[in-house]
């Protein structure tokens, strides 16, 4: 049985797709057969970030409508072994996903994969609720700012009341992933700190991803940023994946850098 993990946030543009791609890749790199599913029907973003947009023939909606088999729609990642992508359709409207259809597809995927990563659309409406309904665990992607934190709080409430596990009286395991973290702006109090966000949301932290130009570069190249191990963001995602798998890993990139000459000389990047 696969573990189903939804990557969700409430607020848009906080880094769900970037994180879904990186984490799915990271899990596969650690030897766990993983599929990443794009629930953002109508926008189709994940395949661009995974660099497989030209290989999309059939999509999630085709499979639900039985116009294609799951195997026809799954795209095998070219760079990373044991990683597959189930793309969303760009042309359909967001109501194309049905609860029964999604359940059938997830059940089928469960037989073959260890992890199913669901990239949720933004918002707290139907699309986001569909993406989180079947989840065993949730990665709540949050930026260190008040509006994002509030939306994360909202989606956590939905997760614990409207998901299938909640309806069965069970818990959905929660993980907090802080992204676009800028220690310098935290130091000047323009942004909330890791401790602030943890305190407000009361959810265990799984990772802190620094704001990094490497992310944009990676998405332009269609290669998840976790493959760029030179970058802070890539390394931070690797740490997050290891924590997700139960390891204890120390946090990096959360202190403001002293940009002294000696510091740089003595090995800081």
């Amino acid at each position, binding site marked *: 049985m696969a573990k189903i993990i939804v990557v969700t946030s409430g607020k848009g543009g906080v880094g769900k797709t970037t994180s879904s791609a990186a984490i799915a890749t990271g899990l596969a790199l650690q030897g766990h057969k993983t599929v990443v599913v794009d629930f953002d029907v109508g926008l189709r973003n994940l395949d661009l970030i995974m660099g497989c947009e030209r290989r999309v023939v059939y999509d999630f909606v085709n499979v639900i409508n039985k116009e294609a088999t799951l195997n026809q729609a799954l795209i095998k990642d070219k760079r990373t072994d044991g990683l597959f992508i189930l793309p969303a359709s760009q042309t359909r409207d967001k109501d194309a996903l049905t609860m029964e259809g999604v359940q059938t597809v997830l059940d089928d995927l469960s037989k073959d994969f260890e992890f199913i990563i669901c990239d949720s659309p933004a918002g707290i409406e139907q699309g986001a609720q569909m993406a989180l309904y079947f989840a065993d665990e949730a990665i709540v992607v949050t930026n260190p700012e008040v509006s994002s934190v509030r939306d994360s*709080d909202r989606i956590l409430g*939905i997760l614990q009341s*409207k998901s299938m596990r909640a309806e069965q009286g069970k818990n959905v395991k929660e993980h907090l992933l802080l992204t676009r973290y800028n220690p310098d702006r935290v130091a000047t109090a323009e942004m909330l700190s890791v401790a602030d966000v943890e305190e407000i949301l009361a959810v265990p932290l799984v990772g802190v991803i620094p704001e990094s130009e490497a992310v944009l570069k990676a998405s332009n190249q269609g290669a998840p940023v976790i493959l760029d191990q030179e970058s802070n963001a890539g390394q931070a995602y690797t740490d997050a994946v290891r924590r997700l798998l139960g390891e204890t890993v120390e946090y990096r990139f959360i202190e403001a850098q002293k940009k002294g000459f000696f510091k740089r000389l003595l090995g800081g990047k």
Partner: protein
Amino acid sequence: MSQQCFRMKGTTLTSIVLDVLKFEPDEFEQQLATKIASAPQFFTRSSLILQINAAMSATEFELLVALCKKHQLQPMAVKGKVGALKATINDLGLSDISQSKSTDSQISPSEEGSTVTSTKESSESAEASGKPKIIDRPVRSGQQVYAQGGDLIIVAPVSEGAEILADGNIHVYGTMRGRALAGVKGDTQARIFCQQVEAELLSIAGRFVMQDTIQSQCWKQPAQAYLEDDTLVVSALV
């Protein structure tokens, strides 16, 4: 000069928004009745804001208002898609607040971010026994928890935008950032105890204080709220 007869004051009050998603009279009335039956004391004679989401005719709107009144709810204002209804709203003595700003929290168990407890549970166990309801998970923005017939004890934080209510006392062992309403059926002896108060609103038996007032008193400290001569007092614990 004669004595002043009145003063004008501003106020903020918490009220229930009835979010009308679809209006099909029979179905609507049935669902409304079920909803009210789940927490009769809480809903009875509640003042209500009607949020109109789908266009409806004047006749339908009149029927909607009549149904609410029949079930002991008191519509006072209307917002949302009021376009064609302005005259009717006026005739019925309601206010059109479609232009004013307000923040809503969800309270209906059948909707998004619903209550942590099932309605059945609250109407069966709590009322008969008066046993306290204990919640040990965070109450998030958009959620509402109501302890009917007794105390509410929360061993977790309560987020901004969340609402907790009890017929009895309320205890929050965690940061209290949302709204807490104790003694909602009128118990003036009810109190609210918070380990760390950062509340948006504290209310006892209908009297309340807002965040601005709390901020100048025991902000971020252990505190309790109680009524003293009909005035809500917030004071430091210990």
